């Protein structure tokens, strides 16, 4: 069976997800919620993919399953030739550690650690990470590396989160509403940083958003409805993040 050692760095750039009949059912009390109702998908290595759809349509559930935070109730998910759905908890953790960078709407920085230490949290446990200072430089925060989260603005905090996510040179960046809590100027700045990572590191970028405007920077857009991918749009004319407004 696949073990963590198989997710070596050489594999990372060819990363691609394949999902077959992914279903996720939550049981809360006496009610069942069908968050995913049989999703088939292919995600290409190095593409920018945007997941669009109303609340409860299943996009966050899919993102969590792709990131190894959650497991489907049934179905298979493959990453670069290995079946993630067959991994145990410890191996899933190793998979995340080696391949996935997460960025959340509310940053999820550790308040007791400085910007640089928040990045170090990831570089401490990665195989061939960037220097934390270098990662902060990529998001333009080299001057604020000794500040604590409470001393940073929302946009700055999110850029620290981005630096933390890219510092391990992940194969995949998963972003759940990364600009949701930011004003548009700051949001664009964060998106630019993400696009840079995609361009320069070849990282696959998967973004959840309510903001249809952001879809303009994607290679492809999955439109979610009722736990299924209702349609897939392929974007022929990608717009640079810096040119977007909303």
């Amino acid at each position, binding site marked *: 069976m696949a073990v963590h050692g198989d997710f070596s760095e050489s594999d990372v750039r060819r990363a691609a997800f394949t999902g077959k009949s992914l279903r996720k059912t939550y049981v809360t009390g006496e009610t069942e919620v069908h968050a995913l109702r049989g999703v088939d998908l292919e995600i290409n290595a190095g593409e920018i993919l945007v997941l669009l759809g109303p609340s409860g349509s299943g996009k966050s559930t899919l993102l*969590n399953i792709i990131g190894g935070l959650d497991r489907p109730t049934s179905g298979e998910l493959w990453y670069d030739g290995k079946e993630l759905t067959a991994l145990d908890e410890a191996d899933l953790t190793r998979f995340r550690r080696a391949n996935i960078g997460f960025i959340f709407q509310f940053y999820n920085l550790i308040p*007791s650690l400085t910007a640089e230490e928040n990045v170090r949290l990831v570089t401490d446990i990665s195989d061939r990470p960037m220097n934390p200072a270098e990662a902060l430089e990529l998001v333009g925060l080299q001057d604020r590396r000794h500040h*604590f989260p409470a001393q940073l603005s929302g946009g700055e905090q999110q850029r620290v989160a981005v630096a933390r996510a890219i510092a391990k040179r992940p194969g995949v960046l998963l972003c759940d509403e990364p600009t949701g809590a930011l004003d548009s100027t700051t949001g664009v700045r964060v998106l630019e940083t993400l696009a840079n990572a995609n361009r320069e590191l070849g990282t696959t970028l998967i973004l959840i958003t309510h903001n249809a405007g952001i879809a303009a920077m994607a290679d492809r857009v999955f439109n979610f409805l009722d736990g299924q991918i209702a349609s897939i749009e392929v974007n022929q004319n990608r717009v640079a993040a810096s040119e977007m407004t909303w």
Partner: protein
Amino acid sequence: MRSLDIKLMRDLWRMRGQALAIGLVIGAAMATFVMAMGVHHSLTQTRDAYYDRYRYADIFVNMTRAPRSVVERIAAIGGVARAEGRIEQFATLELPGRISPIRAKINSIGDGGASSLNRLVLIRGRGPDIQAAGEVVIDKAFADANSLTVGDRIGAIIYGSRSNLEVVGIGLAPDYIWSIAPGELVPDASRYGIFWMGEKALEAASNRTGAINALSLTLEHGASEAEVIRSVDAVVGQFGGTGAVGREDHLSNAFLTSELDQLEAMTRVIPPIFLLVSTFLVYVVLGRTIRTEREEIGLMKAFGYTNWAVGWHYLKFAFAIALIGIVMGSLAGWWMGRSMTGQYAEYYRFPFLIFQISPAVFAGGSLLSLASAGIGALGGVRSAVRLTPATAMSPPPPPVYHAGLVERLGDRAGLTAVGNMIVRHIARWPGRSAITSSGVAMSLGLLFAVIQFIDGSRAMLDNYFFRAQRQDISVTFIEPRNEKVLYDLAALPGVIRVEPARAVAVRMRHGAVAERVAIEAANNDDLLTARVDSDGFEVDLPAAGLMLSRPLAAKLRVSAGDNVEVELLGGRQTQTVMTVASIIDELIGTRAYAQESALSRLTRDGAPVGSANLLIDPLQRDEIITRLGEMPIVLGLTERDAAMELFEQIIEENIMSMMGFYIAFASAIAVGVVYNSARILFSERAHELATLRVLGYQRREVAIVLLGELALLVAIAVPLGCIAGYWLAQLMISMFSSDLFRLPFAPDRSSYGFAILVILAAAAATAMIVARRVTRLDMVRVLKARD
């Protein structure tokens, strides 16, 4: 039920683990309180009822020999309600198969065991016939220890002649609740018995026809004990009276009282520690609950609940937790009290047992528990009352961390990011961290303070038996002898060295204070005995004058250089003035010493040998014991090794049986403190822990954040606990010290080690239970919520 009460019930259920952990600590307070007060109360009641029903006398006096008519003269003294005389005669017993000497004190009694004071309680059989020469009632403890029963026969040497005693009854008496053979340090029911024999029969056996040598009396209501004692001494002086004593100084009662005092001391030391810890725990837990329920508080107030109603709601939460402890502690305390009272009743000789814990004890304990929980709740309740709805319903400001001392130290120490998280969180909540550490320290200190009592007892044993008493056998004579007896003893085969000893009963007076005490004669060139102070150093006798033990000096309010009046009791009523030359800190008794030469100037009796200390060849021990037993002048023999063994046994049985309780109680504090800290830590950091899991940290790596902080706080607690234990031990030693003995503070290093291990184990086990929650951490749910 009102909706706030429903919320209260559900909150309690949700936080049942934490509530139970605090309840455990309050329960420990309640249990020790109920147990100690209950046992104290039950024993006091039992003792008082026993004294009352069986007419325990108020004043006791011994004499050399007095005509029976002296009883009437005593009864005529103003303030005396009733007086009674009797003969007390020591005897040596011969039980088959026993080499070590067995002694009995035979008391004369009226026909069929009747007496007006210190009445005999017959458990089996009947009282002795007043005339029948061989009939005796024997005390229950001696009967049990030697498997004797009614109808058995015992060979005895009474007043130099051999006789055959028949056990006609087994009984108890209120003046022998606790008894010890003269010259012994440890009571041993198998080697010392209390017997009762018909008055006429004992008169004949002890050559005291028409005479008595002991007298006891009861006082009329309101009579002055001191005045009556003075009058009694004036009357019995001419008959060799050794000084009358009240109940307070009567050995049996004095011992029981000192035990009861220790129980009372326990209620003043141990429950307050538990209550203090529980106050802190309620403070921390309720404070955290109120912080997390900020928005609900805002909502309640917005809906129109008054500040008072909200405050009362949270106060009830604290009271409910206290109630859990009160119920658990009451049950445990009742059960423990019952078993402990039973143990005491076995050790002390009571014919019946009143086990009764008054409702006032439960009420008092409950009030204390509620008060400590209430005080702990005040901080949290105050903040709940003060919150305005508008502030409450907006989220609290995030915790602010700045680059401070701790941060710079962390950088310098080269801590990992996780290490920094741990250290900074502790620094961010210094109050709570301090409570966790000091709580664990308290549990460690308490356990240590209890364990060191065993070390103290052993040290006292070592001090007495190895340093002060080096003889193999002490021989006590029926009457003081002249020096010739020493040569007789030295001539026994196997006796290596013989040294004389004696103790002379005197009354010492300094100003208005008088104390009855024995002056022990000694010589500085003695090899077999020495005066050893509490630090184990030998102290030389002064060339002239007296050396007093510190508690005696304190009672007489004298210091070195002062003079005391010394009145010889028994025989000649010589009075003289002696100088207190030095004071010695001893562990056992209230004693006085003088050089033999100084003492013989006082007694002028030419019979300076009251007892002798022997060093023997162990191979000839049996032969020597047999030969000594055959000597008619010998009253008793004490073997050092046997006494030491017995003492060890008492320590093992009595103290060790309590050890289980104390380990459980001290662990309860550690469990309560660590569990609550861990749960609060976990709930505060759930978000961060989930973030770490998302970032790719394994469960055990995440658990380190939680366990690391606890481990650090517990590590800080260890040295603090050792210091707390040191002070607590000093406090408990001073509260447990009595005239009879003072335990030294002499902890074995392993006692610190044992206490540390127990507390670390309790802390670790508790922390692991909470750490298991890390595995159930729902990353998705935690991250969806805003911190």
